């Protein structure tokens, strides 16, 4: 296995990912766990297929770099500037709090202070990849807790610079000797950042335009990659964090017209490289160390996780974050991270730390990275439902029963339009929405908004379902939508349910539940587009409108006619094929009807 070729290596990594990740997803676990498990499986403690995890780790760190570049792309300089307080405030609180607590504990345990300081600094660092990856997976990036996590992760990247400068000093003890290079290094670093900022502002736009004009898409992708690699390389040259540099470059390009293009080009690389990174972390977990001193590793793991959780809990309270977001926020930055690896390596090179201690710490950090996604699953499945059940409306301000005649469940793109229309006509509506961020926004406009899951009977009751007249079902998730429809029928039969159907199957399922007023969400906008096509093909506007309206009536009638057979169909056809089968039937039926339709003035 010493000279594994590039080809067989790719084979192993890709196969591991392709097998493990879908398995993890099927088990309801996050992709990150899948990658980590794949890493453990192919590593020296599993199938022994891979032994050079460290090398791969270095390569895969690039995934983190790309991720921060892409996050930077989403943040305009103005917004970054607005984040300066959370970054330096909460970020510093996390670093100082965690380091202080860990240092205190280590000193109490009798560890020499230099070693204790280096270890605490290393352990205080979190895994940007895991934290932001998990946020991404849950679509929490734009929430308040997501932004706070990002702020803290950014400060850690910034803090890595002085820490990596400090650790060798602790080892050598010759402070006077190191002074000059450190100052020189800082100057070089500042110069490089300035150069990147200026270069990004002045040169990149024309350069990207020139490349885009070549009309060779893969070259633009290459340019996007080159851009990030070059920035990372420049940053490494002056010993700054590559990820931080990439992030800054991303921010600089956030207002650039090629931003979307860069995003789409780099996104797949980010995903794959991050996956590779997690696999490498899994591979590098040294179970040898763990098995030699299981108690010590466990103590270390529990101890430092506990200390960091405590600090994060304090920060979550101080910010303060909404109750429902807190557990995830607290957990996301508790684990150790890739910077910890680097700190320990630097420390052992500086002979501040012996190899055994370093590998002990490394094992603890790597294990913590494995534990975090698992703990997240526990939080999701066990803690959050309990928190939600503990207090009826999780958001404290609204706990008196509501009496608006209209309840809107789900306030995404569909529910909002209905809500605004009610608002415009002075009809009070109570909104149920499970996205906390959305809730905050809507509430600012003086709406009655409940944070929470409409599939909960108590919440529906609190929202005034017993007295309301209309329930608007605008929930994205089909299962949840049907669940609420069931609840409404069983407990509030007087409610008129106005439902949005995501697709034909959803429509049938709603009709099955006696819901009469259903709109298929895409039907009308698609018909409007169909009208535009007819007009573009030369039909007169009024005629196009009439044909579209008639088509609408026809297609609604067809669905209604199919209703009795819907169950048979579902039984006959595998669910995945259902959509196509329905389409084929509709086409066949429409062909059949065409002649008759022409007589009715239905089409030309």
């Amino acid at each position, binding site marked *: 296995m010493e000279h594994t070729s590039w080809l067989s290596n790719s084979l192993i990594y890709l196969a591991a990912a392709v097998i493990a990740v879908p398995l993890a997803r099927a088990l309801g676990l996050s992709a990150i766990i899948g990658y980590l498990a794949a890493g453990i499986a192919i590593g020296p403690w599993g199938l022994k297929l891979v032994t050079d995890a460290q090398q791969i780790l270095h390569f895969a760190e690039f995934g983190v770099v790309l991720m921060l570049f892409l996050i930077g792309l989403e943040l305009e300089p103005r917004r970054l500037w607005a984040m300066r307080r959370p970054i330096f405030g909460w970020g510093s609180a996390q670093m100082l709090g965690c380091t202080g607590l860990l240092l205190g504990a280590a000193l109490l345990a009798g560890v020499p202070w230099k070693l204790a300081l280096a270890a605490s600094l290393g352990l205080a660092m979190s895994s940007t990849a895991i934290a932001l990856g998990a946020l991404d997976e849950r679509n929490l990036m734009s929430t308040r807790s997501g932004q706070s996590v990002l702020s803290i992760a950014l400060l850690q990247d910034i803090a890595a610079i002085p820490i990596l400068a400090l650790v060798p000093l602790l080892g050598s003890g010759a402070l006077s000797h190191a002074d000059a290079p450190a100052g020189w290094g800082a100057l070089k670093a500042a110069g490089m950042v300035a150069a990147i900022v200026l270069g990004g502002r002045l040169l990149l736009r024309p350069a990207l335009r020139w490349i885009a004009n070549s009309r060779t898409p893969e070259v633009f992708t290459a340019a996007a990659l080159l851009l990030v690699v070059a920035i990372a390389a420049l940053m490494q040259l002056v010993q700054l964090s590559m990820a931080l540099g990439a992030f800054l470059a991303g921010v600089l390009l956030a207002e650039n017209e090629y931003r979307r293009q860069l995003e789409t080009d780099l996104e797949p690389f980010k995903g794959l490289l991050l996956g590779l990174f997690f696999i490498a972390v899994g591979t590098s977990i040294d179970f040898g160390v763990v098995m030699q001193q299981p108690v010590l590793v466990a103590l270390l793991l529990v101890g430092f996780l506990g200390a960091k959780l405590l600090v994060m809990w304090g920060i979550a309270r101080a910010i303060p974050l909404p109750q429902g977001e807190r557990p995830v926020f607290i957990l996301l930055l508790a684990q150790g991270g890739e910077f910890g690896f680097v700190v320990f390596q630097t420390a052992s090179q500086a002979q501040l730390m012996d190899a055994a201690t370093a590998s002990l710490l490394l094992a603890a950090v790597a294990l913590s990275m494995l534990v975090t996604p698992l703990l997240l699953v526990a939080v999701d499945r066990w803690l959050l439902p309990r928190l939600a059940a503990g207090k009826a409306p999780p958001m404290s301000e609204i706990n008196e029963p509501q009496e608006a005649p209209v309840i809107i469940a789900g306030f995404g793109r569909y529910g909002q339009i209905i809500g605004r229309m009610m608002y415009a006509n002075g009809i009070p509506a109570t909104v149920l929405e499970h996205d906390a961020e959305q809730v905050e926004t809507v509430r600012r406009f003086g709406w009655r908004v409940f944070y929470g899951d409409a599939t909960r009977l108590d919440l529906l009751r609190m929202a005034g379902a017993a007295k309301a007249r209309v329930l608007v079902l605008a929930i994205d998730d089909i299962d949840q939508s049907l669940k609420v429809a069931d609840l409404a029928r069983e407990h509030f039969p007087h409610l008129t349910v106005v439902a949005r159907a995501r697709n034909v199957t959803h429509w049938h399922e709603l009709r099955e539940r006696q819901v009469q007023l259903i709109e298929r969400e895409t039907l009308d906008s698609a018909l409007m587009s169909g009208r535009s096509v007819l007009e573009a093909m030369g039909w007169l506007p009024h005629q196009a409108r*009439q044909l579209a309206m008639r088509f609408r009536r026809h297609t609604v009638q067809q669905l209604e006619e199919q209703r009795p057979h819907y169950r048979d169909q579902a039984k006959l056809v595998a669910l995945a094929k259902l959509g196509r089968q329905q389409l084929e039937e509709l086409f066949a039926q429409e062909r059949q009807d065409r002649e008759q339709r022409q007589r*009715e003035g239905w089409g030309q």
Partner: protein
Amino acid sequence: MASIQILAAHPQLQHSRVTRALMNSAHALPPGLVEVRDLYALYPDYLIDIAAEQAALEEARLVVWLHPVQWYGMPALMKLWVDEVLTYDWAYGGSATRLRGKDLWLVASTGGPQESYHPGGYNRYFFDAFLPPYEQTAALCGMRFLPPLLLHGAHRVTPEQLQAHVTVFTDRLRSHPDWPELDELEQCPQCLVPASARPAA
């Protein structure tokens, strides 16, 4: 299907006094006798179901057009109904006999008072001057155009006047076709549309 089909058209029924009162009173009549088709409720998108409308007409002995007069004629949706439902070869022309012999009764209200429909008033014509399009529509379909039931100055009628109007309306519906004045009414003129008046096939 009832033998009296009332086609009601009021684009703003929520502001209506007369049309709504008439519709309500018609709803109270035996369902086998009268069916009220509220066009603006049935076709808010102006997409008339032609087949359904024609089927309802075929069952009817008496067709009532119930609407407020707007700009000296019927509301837009009702005119669209006429345009789309009374098709060639079905309602008129050639061998169309589907409506032949049925009665058509206009029950309309005007905002302007009776005095305004006078050469000296702001409407400059007697109200009869606005009726020929109705009469001729009926004639072309072979229908008998009954003397219209009109209520002028609809905005200002007293509840008593309105009630009296409603009573006349329902009495007439109940007693159709035994109306005393129908004896003097001449039969429909035959309006044959020659093939040469139609576009060549």
